[in-house]
């Protein structure tokens, strides 16, 4: 063989193996922890499918990444306030729920949500859920805070943080006594905006990522904030910072993340194997152990969690789940909410 022929053969070989691999590799665009090696490597061995994960920092990352051109990602995990947008943007395809073994075990409350359905078909497989709880630094309070109003307390000036997200409007609206947070009128949004402006001089920093909030507590910059229940408090506990989560008297929002299949994926077989795994004990306890979130399949959770973890994650506590105001798609009201929040930040 001449060198040229050898190189040609090598290139051809490389090309053919890479195409052969393509059907066995799935690319997931997801949150950190949802595709953690601690359980994904077991899946890869059992299924023969390889998983590549790209992480998002916020729900706002899904649309721009998918808009930039298709063919890259096979599966995504937007939260319940973004899933409808994915469906309306025509980025995802209906699920064949018959191919998902544990579908019927999912909490009925989640299967009843509008955000993951359209025209009688399901587009999202509920995966994990939790509360947007509030959190305080133990050492800073002699009497623990109980209300959203504590984030407006002038005594805490410069020690308050709030999530840089449209959800701040939900928080301010509840403080104002408007409980219809996903259906606010223009006046109610304006009132929420005014409340946030009133709070702004007290705010040290609006937090944008989970890591940023952890850093703010660690560096002693803030003592009270909202949080993704279970996640940042777990990271802080690991760092030896003592914080406590609480559900304020005004209630807390609930979130739920679903796996969605990107339209036209060529890797359907592996994608469905992956969905099945994520709803099984392997995936459900895998993510619960990494992120500290509650999961959507209580049967799997019961089988793989210790009784303490099962109770701590409110897996058998319908009252807790029902008390959460689970995020809803805002549809064409979305702009009014984001615009109000942007106006607060612009001031």
């Amino acid at each position, binding site marked *: 063989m001449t060198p040229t022929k050898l190189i040609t053969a090598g290139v051809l070989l490389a090309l053919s193996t890479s195409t052969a691999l393509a059907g066995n590799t799935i690319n997931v665009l997801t949150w950190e922890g949802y595709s953690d090696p601690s359980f994904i490597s077991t899946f890869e061995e059992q299924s023969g499918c390889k998983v590549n994960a790209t992480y998002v920092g*916020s729900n*706002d*990352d899904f*649309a*721009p990444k998918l*808009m930039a051109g298709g063919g890259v990602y096979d599966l995504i995990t937007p939260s319940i306030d973004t899933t409808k*947008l994915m469906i*309306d*943007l025509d980025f995802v395809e209906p699920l064949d729920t018959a191919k998902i073994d544990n579908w019927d075990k999912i909490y009925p409350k989640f299967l009843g949500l509008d955000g993951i359905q359209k025209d009688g078909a399901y587009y999202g497989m509920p995966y994990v859920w939790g509360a947007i709880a509030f959190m305080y630094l133990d050492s800073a309070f002699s009497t623990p805070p109980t209300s959203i109003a504590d984030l407006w307390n002038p005594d805490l000036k*410069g020690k308050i943080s709030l999530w840089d*997200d*449209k959800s701040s409007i939900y928080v301010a609206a509840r403080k104002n006594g408007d409980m219809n947070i996903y259906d606010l009128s223009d006046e109610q949004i304006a009132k929420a905006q005014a409340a946030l402006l009133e709070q*702004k001089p007290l*705010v*040290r*920093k*609006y937090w*944008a990522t989970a890591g940023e909030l952890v850093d703010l507590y660690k*560096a*002693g*910059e803030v003592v009270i904030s909202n949080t993704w229940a279970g996640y940042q408090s777990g990271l802080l506990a690991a760092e030896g910072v003592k914080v406590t989560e609480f559900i304020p008297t005004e209630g807390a929002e609930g979130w739920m993340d679903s796996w969605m299949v990107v339209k036209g994926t060529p890797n359907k077989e592996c994608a469905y194997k992956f969905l099945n795994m994520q709803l099984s004990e392997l995936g459900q306890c895998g993510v619960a152990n990494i992120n500290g979130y509650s999961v959507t399949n209580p049967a799997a959770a019961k089988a793989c969690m210790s009784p303490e973890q099962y109770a701590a994650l409110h897996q058998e506590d319908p009252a807790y789940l029902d008390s959460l105001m689970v995020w809803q798609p805002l*549809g*064409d009201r*979305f*702009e009014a909410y*984001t*615009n109000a929040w*942007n*106006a607060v*930040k*612009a*001031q």
Partner: protein
Amino acid sequence: MTLIRRNLAGALILGIPFLWIALFMLLPYGIIVTYSFWIKTYPTFKPAFQFGNYLTLFTDPQYLQVMLRTLKIALLVSLCSFLLAYPFAFYLVFRCKSAALRTWLYMAVIAPLWVSYLLRAYVWKTILGTEGILNSFLMSVGIIDQPSDIFLYNQFAMVVTLTYIFIPFMVMPIYTALEKIPLNLTEASADLGMGPWRSFWHVTLPLSLPGVAAGFTLTFCLSFGDFVAPFLVGGPDGNLMANVIATQFGAALNWPLGSALAIVMLVVVLSIVSMSDRLERKGAAGGF
């Protein structure tokens, strides 16, 4: 044959950069301009030709506010950089006798450019924080007895961080401009009875203005478009234009409005650049 080959070479040498500019500069600008006339409709946006996005920018106070704040921060950064960089460059060129020391000091200013921007911005967080180095120092020397939170997460922190990051772009052109001034001009001015201050005022400073203009342009434009400092060390009142553009392309999914903002920013930067260009040419022609 040789003629064809020569033409081909010429076409390649000129053609590739031209293609590059067309493909990676003009085309993207064209796309942004086009988007800026489109209209937002749920779930995304659709083609249109209307000026609604530009109108929003100038009627909704939130955008004017951010624009003015960005101008203010960029001006403050340029001014602080100038006040620090000019005496430093002056010392290096005219007062520093040892060539080795001069090279060493010059490198000390330039060297941070080789360190990642993000890392340098992060470092300021650990310096300015409530439990940071600055507070520990002030407390240890007894100037304050409680850690202060006035250093981080506000516009002051942004100006400090951006000045630190962009100051090399002010030092380099001023140094070059000062170095080009023939020494005999100052000597002549002294011979004619001018004191050192008046010589500086009437000879050195005017001759170095093109360098100052270049430095101002660089630091202004760089901080005008900055996105990271507000995110890392800015506080609740630290949103700049680039952050608002990012929000429009991300969270708000309003690419048309984001594009209109980007075009306004581009116009501001281009007018600054052309103004400084005119100033430099005037300086080169000696028309002060």
